[in-house]
């Protein structure tokens, strides 16, 4: 297992948001997390790179094993966890004061100085992986915020993969994109899972069905069911999963 949660509980002050979730994420697979709004799926995702504890009152108990080491165990710094577990958010968040090139390089520069030539290669590779290279190669020094929303989101994807993380967390990455932008991101998921372990939170069940190998259904902060996507969408074991997937609630 690349990544695995063991009885992970996430709280805001005294309110339990995610309750004792144990969920494995096999290497080089895409796992989709689905569930109605407020079911704790985003909070769960934010526990996987220790972002949850940065929110006011956010804390967690239980274990999150990354390559066999508990990221909450004290042996690993939160900052190092976040360098190994990349994240893309719901809305594109390019750094507005940086050029396209600098945005992609940002995550590498924080690790220390890298020779110019090597940096150029990494930036090109990351932008190629995010299927953005051809569109921006002539204006790498240009503004990142002048890009379209879909391009900005792919830029954020490039920024996340540039430091070569082991795991990629996508928090509703297509929520603010048009169908064409959505399709590109989905294609990228399939492409990127050859290198990374991907966890994607989505509201869109068709999307979960299209891109993921495994699907986990969350409801009221609990993991209701997890299984191979094919099986989850055709014959789920739990009646709540079936009700949600068939659109009877949520």
């Amino acid at each position, binding site marked *: 297992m690349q990544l695995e949660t063991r009885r992970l509980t996430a709280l805001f002050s005294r309110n339990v948001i995610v309750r004792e979730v144990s969920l494995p994420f096999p290497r080089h697979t895409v796992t989709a997390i689905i569930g109605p709004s407020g079911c704790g799926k985003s909070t769960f995702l934010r526990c996987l*790179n220790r*972002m949850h504890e*940065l929110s*006011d009152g956010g804390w967690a108990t239980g274990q999150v094993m990354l390559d066999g080491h508990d990221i909450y165990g004290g042996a690993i710094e939160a*900052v*190092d966890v*976040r*360098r190994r577990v*990349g*994240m893309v*958010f719901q*809305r594109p*968040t390019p*750094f*507005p*004061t940086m*050029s396209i090139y600098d945005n992609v390089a*940002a*995550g590498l520069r*924080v*690790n220390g100085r890298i020779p110019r030539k090597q940096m150029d290669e990494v930036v090109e590779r990351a932008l190629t992986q995010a299927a953005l290279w051809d569109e921006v190669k002539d204006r790498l020094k*240009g*503004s990142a*915020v*002048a890009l379209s929303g879909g391009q900005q989101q792919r830029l*954020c994807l490039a*920024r*996340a993969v540039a*430091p070569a993380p082991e795991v990629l967390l996508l928090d509703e990455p297509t929520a603010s994109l048009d169908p064409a932008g959505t399709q590109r991101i989905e294609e990228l998921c399939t492409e990127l899972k050859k290198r990374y372990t991907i966890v994607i939170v989505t509201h869109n069940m068709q999307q979960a069905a299209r891109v993921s190998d495994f699907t986990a259904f969350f409801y009221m902060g609990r993991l209701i069911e997890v299984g191979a996507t094919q099986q989850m969408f055709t014959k789920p074991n739990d009646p709540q999963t079936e009700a949600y997937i068939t659109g009877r609630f949520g």
Partner: protein
Amino acid sequence: MSVRIATRRIRSGFFTGLVVLLCFLAVLPLFLIFADLVHKGASSINWDFFVKIPVPAGQSGGGVSNAIVGTIIIVLIACGIGIPIGIGTGLYLAEYGVGRLGWFVRFLADVLNGTPSIVVGIFAWTWFVKPVHHFSALAGGAALALLMVPMLARTTEEMLRLVPNSLREAALALGYPRWRTSLSVMARVALSGIVTGSLVGVARVAGETAPLLFTALGNINFDTNIKEPMQTLSLQIFTYATGPFEDWHRLAWASALVLMSLVLGLALAARWATRKRYGT
């Protein structure tokens, strides 16, 4: 066209006109002051004004070179002390100032912000002048810095709070340590606001007189030693404008014009320095 739409248009036009008028009223004093300064001061400005020091009372001619250089030196001292402390405090307040200490610092800054500058001057005198028994430009700069710090702290904080939290999260998610997120992402986005805020602070203290009366004191000679008393334009204006001689009044107007131009020039420079690097 229905009557209702017509009334709506009239009302809309009325209020648009009203805010334009109010806006005009707000900037009018600036133009009046500047026009008056040019009218009364420009004729006294010549080469001597910038390169000569004041002549003894009663004689005509002379300049205020000592005051111009003094103003620049004292403001630079104030910036050197005040800007790092002020911006640092603002960063602290915006990034970590959630607890009781943050509340306390913010409260102190607000109180200090509202403190009359003459009171700050008296305090500066007790701290920086009395112990060493000597007036100095350094003490003057420190007094002005004391005025700048709370202003800068609060504007820096406000500017940083305008930066969307999603950018902070994006940086942290990339593995940025917190201090680096603050400095290289948040502060950079807020930079133009912080620079403008600093400039407003500089402009305000550049014209301060009261705190300098007890600290820099003034000096009729050209002196660049920061351990000695020093003349500034504001002190020069104070002395000349309240003096009995016609020639002094003339020089006071000219000094006021120069001071105002310095402040205006600073404002333009800052606008230019922080112009948008990328068109959006």
